[in-house]
């Protein structure tokens, strides 16, 4: 069961990576594209944190530290991309 879940997460990560790459090559409106890419990066990162690192069931503090790091970094990237220049 654990292996099945891990395999599904792996397939999801691979598919989203391909999707992100294809979208980037096709160059949809740049700001929309960047928002989609960063949201995808957040979702993929959270999947790694929860299912590969196995932090889904540990004390909430440990999971929050790394999840907040991810959201913070991606939010700063998005904010500076949109309003920075």
């Amino acid at each position: 069961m654990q292996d099945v879940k891990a395999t599904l997460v792996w397939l999801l990560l691979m598919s989203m990576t391909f999707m992100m790459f294809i979208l980037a090559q096709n160059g949809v409106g740049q700001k929309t594209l960047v928002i989609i890419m960063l949201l995808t990066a957040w979702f993929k990162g959270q999947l790694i944190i929860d299912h590969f690192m196995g932090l889904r069931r540990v004390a909430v503090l440990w999971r929050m530290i790394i999840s907040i790091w991810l959201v913070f970094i991606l939010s700063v990237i998005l904010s500076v991309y949109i309003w920075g220049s």
Partner: protein
Amino acid sequence: MCLETPDVRNASNKHNSPDDLPGDLAVWMFIYAELLAFGAFFITYIVTRSNNVELFNQYQLTLDAKSGLLNTLVLITSSFFVVKSVNAAKRDQLNKTVFWLFASVLAGLVFIAVKSYEFYSKYSEGVNLSTNTFYTFYLSMTFFHYMHVMLGLVILCAMLLKAKRGGYCSTDIHGLETGASYWHMVDLVWLVLFPLVYLIR
């Protein structure tokens, strides 16, 4: 039951409560510190880029995005193999533990080969850290990550040797989870680095 002698087994055996982090707490402190370092790199990159958008866009086109894509897929797959190895150890399937660890090392080596080729290509074109601001960031960030992959591979190889001796099983998985956590961190960082450096324009 692990195949190593009981003395060795007991010396490294830790029983975590369900609330505890998988693996060693000290390594998790190291992982959090590493994430802060990479985070500082990422923020500095995007802020510097905002003041040099044309230059960054121009030189980003010289990167091989397909190599970046390949390396992303390879790292995700390697992380997945490590998960399979840990799961096998939890079920006392020692041969599968070794097999999946070996597969994860191979995938890690593919990452190193692809990234080394990228570095070599840039070096052949005369690119170095002082070529321009974009390359300063590109080379330093990706090389910093590359060194983490190298360290991760050393850890994976050490775990592989121990697994071959029957050192991991359902009652002694602490060391395996510790190394696995570090390897997943290397993967997590690349999932932010790849779109940031190769794709965002």
